[in-house]
């Protein structure tokens, strides 16, 4: 674990990309293969299952530290990270461990299978043999929450430098449903097994947001446009007589969307489609909330299938007849996709995401204005001559979202953030007026600058009216403009509405609280946009 801890420390100490790549590349060259594989797994979000509840960990840590549990609980929000809080309160280690990362991962994997007293004994022994960063990392790994400031892109770049294998090729090899238990470093990275490639998706190409209108993109004639659908991005693969559905987060979602099994009947062998999964009724998408219910279920009850049936709105063809089309220009891929979809029966869950015709940018702006009515959240712009790239790359794909809806609301509760935002108050609850009462209607966490978060944190500390555990009720004094993408009726919320993607657009220092919006204003938005 010492080598892995040293890597983590190097990554954690710097914000510079080059330094991170250097540290990773050195690790991928020098560390034992099993450790490299685990590191790739952890950095690509393949975390071990949580082997012990956090409640038990808190109890055991407080007990070992000789502290009352309440005192441990008071420390946690100040530190902002459970693994770190535990590492800090425990007494110094009395021994050291020479076990490697993969040894520790095996130990952690075995924890789930043993009885609780044994589990406790093993965890206490681990704490006693690990100090500082190693102890913190062990805690991160057993709580299943391992994250470090390294994107998959950055890791892939470092792997590429260490192995000499092309980045895009590596990105592809790393996709899919593998764990360190099912593959070896050789099998995954150095000499991949062709059979394992059957279900493997292509890395998704991700768009950037257009900031000030599309004019800067040049001539409108070079671009194709379609609606930006508000569902979940999905890649549908038909290979070897089977089908696979992958999320952008590389999660295999095949079983969650049984409707898409029909793809086997309608699409030929060796087809890969990129599109958006949407809950769909007749000719329009259902609100995202309907799809949300589907996402959270691993298996779908019949009632839900009938209530919120899904379709795949297809917009790109990545593989045809087993041939990788990603280097083919989009216009050509699109033509092939349209041919493939021509004549699909109406009961098919596969739909084409239609192109929006436009002669100039003005016409596209008009089409965009109609997006909300079509159940979309804006338009996508894709360069007709561009290949299908991997990851978020500026240049060929752009999203031009609708301007958000907004209301001015009063901050009434505040809670400290986690990780980098620990000790700062960053999670707020906002309210609107209902007569002379403030009714909470949304939470928001983002949109302010670090300086603004620091300022509001100082204010929160000095203007707390009541504390409910980590939550503080504050004086209703500050107004924020809350921007959001959609509004829906919600019987679960006191205000009767639920917002989609709420965030703080601006701190309205100029606005007195009396001038914040009202519940009636929200209901009017619900009537016009819900």
């Amino acid at each position: 674990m010492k080598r892995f801890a040293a890597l983590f420390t190097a990554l954690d100490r710097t914000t510079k990309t080059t330094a991170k790549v250097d540290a990773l590349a050195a690790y991928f060259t020098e560390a034992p293969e099993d450790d490299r594989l685990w590191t790739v797994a952890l950095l690509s979000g393949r975390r071990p299952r949580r082997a012990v509840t956090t409640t038990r960990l808190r109890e055991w840590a407080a007990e070992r530290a000789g502290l009352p549990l309440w005192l441990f609980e008071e420390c946690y929000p100040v530190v902002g990270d459970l693994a770190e809080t535990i590492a800090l309160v425990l007494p110094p280690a009395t021994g050291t461990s020479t076990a490697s990362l993969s040894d520790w991962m095996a130990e952690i994997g075995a924890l789930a299978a043993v009885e609780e007293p044994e589990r406790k004994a093993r965890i206490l022994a681990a704490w006693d043999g690990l100090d500082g960063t190693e102890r913190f990392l062990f805690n991160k790994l057993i709580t299943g929450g391992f994250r470090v400031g390294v994107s998959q892109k950055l890791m892939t770049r470092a792997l590429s430098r260490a192995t000499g294998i092309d980045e895009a090729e590596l990105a592809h090899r790393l996709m899919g449903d593998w764990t360190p238990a099912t593959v070896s470093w050789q099998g995954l990275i150095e000499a991949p097994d062709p059979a394992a490639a059957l279900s493997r998706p292509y890395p998704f190409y991700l768009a950037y947001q257009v900031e000030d209108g599309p004019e800067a993109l040049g001539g409108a004639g070079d671009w194709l446009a379609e609606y930006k659908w508000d569902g979940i991005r999905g890649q549908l693969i038909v290979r070897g007589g089977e089908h696979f559905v992958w999320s952008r987060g590389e999660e295999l979602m095949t079983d969650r969307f049984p409707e898409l099994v029909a793809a086997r009947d309608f699409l030929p062998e060796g087809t890969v489609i990129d599109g958006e999964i949407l809950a769909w009724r007749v000719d329009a998408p259902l609100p995202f909330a309907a799809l949300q219910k589907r996402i959270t279920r691993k298996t779908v009850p019949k009632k839900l299938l009938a209530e919120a049936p899904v379709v795949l709105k297809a917009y790109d063809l990545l593989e045809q007849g087993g041939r990788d089309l990603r280097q083919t220009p989009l216009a050509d891929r699109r033509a092939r996709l349209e041919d493939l979809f021509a004549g699909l029966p109406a009961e098919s869950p596969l739909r084409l995401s239609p192109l929006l015709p436009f002669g100039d940018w003005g016409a596209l702006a008009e089409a965009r204005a109609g997006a909300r009515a079509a159940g979309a959240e804006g338009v996508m712009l894709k360069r007709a001559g561009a290949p299908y790239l991997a990851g978020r790359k500026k240049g060929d794909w752009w999203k031009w979202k609708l301007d958000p809806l907004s209301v001015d609301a009063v901050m009434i509760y505040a809670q400290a953030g986690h990780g980098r935002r620990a000790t700062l108050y960053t999670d707020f609850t906002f309210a609107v007026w209902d007569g002379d009462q403030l009714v909470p209607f949304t939470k928001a966490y983002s949109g302010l600058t670090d300086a603004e978060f620091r300022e509001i944190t100082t204010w929160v500390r000095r203007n707390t009216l009541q504390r409910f555990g980590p939550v503080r009720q504050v004086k209703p004094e500050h107004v924020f403009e809350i921007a959001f993408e959609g509004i829906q009726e919600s019987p679960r919320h006191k205000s009767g509405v639920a917002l989609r993607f709420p965030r703080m657009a601006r701190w309205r220092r100029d606005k007195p609280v009396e001038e914040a919006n009202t519940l009636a204003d929200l209901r009017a938005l619900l009537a016009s946009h819900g």
Partner: protein
Amino acid sequence: MSVLTFTERGIYCPAGDFFIDPWRPVDRALITHGHADHARPGHRHYLATAPAAPVMRHRLGDIALETVGYGKARRIGDATVSFHPAGHVPGSAQIRVEVGGEVWVVSGDYKLEEDGLSEPFEPVRAHAFISECTFGLPVFKWAPQAEVFAGINAWWAGNAARGRFTLLGAYALGKAQRLLAGVDAATGPILTHGAVEATCAVMRAQGIALPETVPVTPDTDLKAHAGGLVLAPPSALGGPWARCFGPAATGFASGWMALRGVRRRRAADRGFVLSDHADWAGLNTAIRETGAERVFVTHGYTSVFRRWLVEQGYEAEIVQTAFEGESLDRAEDEA
């Protein structure tokens, strides 16, 4: 009547008619040390230790300041007062007040570890102890300073070997001089920001030995000092002032650096856990050694620390201070 009471102007002694570290103008103020939240302007008479005086004069200008040596008892009205080393910064004191045989001690800010510059902390027996608790949570545990300085020295030497400047952010009064005295000055030149240099000059003038420093001015030939250590207030590190050093390594030295969240937010290369306040164990030791049964907690995680002390059998209360919320408000820089 209590030896000390807590008023909206600060801690007050009715028997002697004086205040300790008051935050609003008063007639007679006893000052524990020169930091801005303890030594405020506008009082008619000041009383502090002799080594605390130069910095107070430097910061507060022409004040009516009387000085007293450590441990020297002095009668004020019906109270007997004396100042005792707090180990926080040079000249810092705990203030002992005795009225009719009852002894109360105000800690000011303090730390137990000897830093080589400040007069080392001395426990004072008391019936009641008013203690700061800036780091009054068991997550705060300081490593011995020799270990911290070994880390700083190695980091500086590594940067110097690559020809880079090492920018270290630290509070201008106290922490900066402690760093100066503790680093291996043979590694290379040490440069200072104006705010740090001003305090160094005051301390040198009072006879405190500090390594040679080069004040950074617009005329300073930086190339001639390549690989140097630059000491600056934390706020200067993010600003335009720091840019003239090129691609430098940056770090901060503060007790708050114990928290990864704070370290990451500072976006510096390194955070060194070095504080002029007592850590959790230090606070508990200091309180135990006073022998006090009553403890008043102030400046920090007061409600948590009070509850802990009550569970340990103390009669503990919270003292509210003006203009203050919780610890992190006291500028993460200062601690």
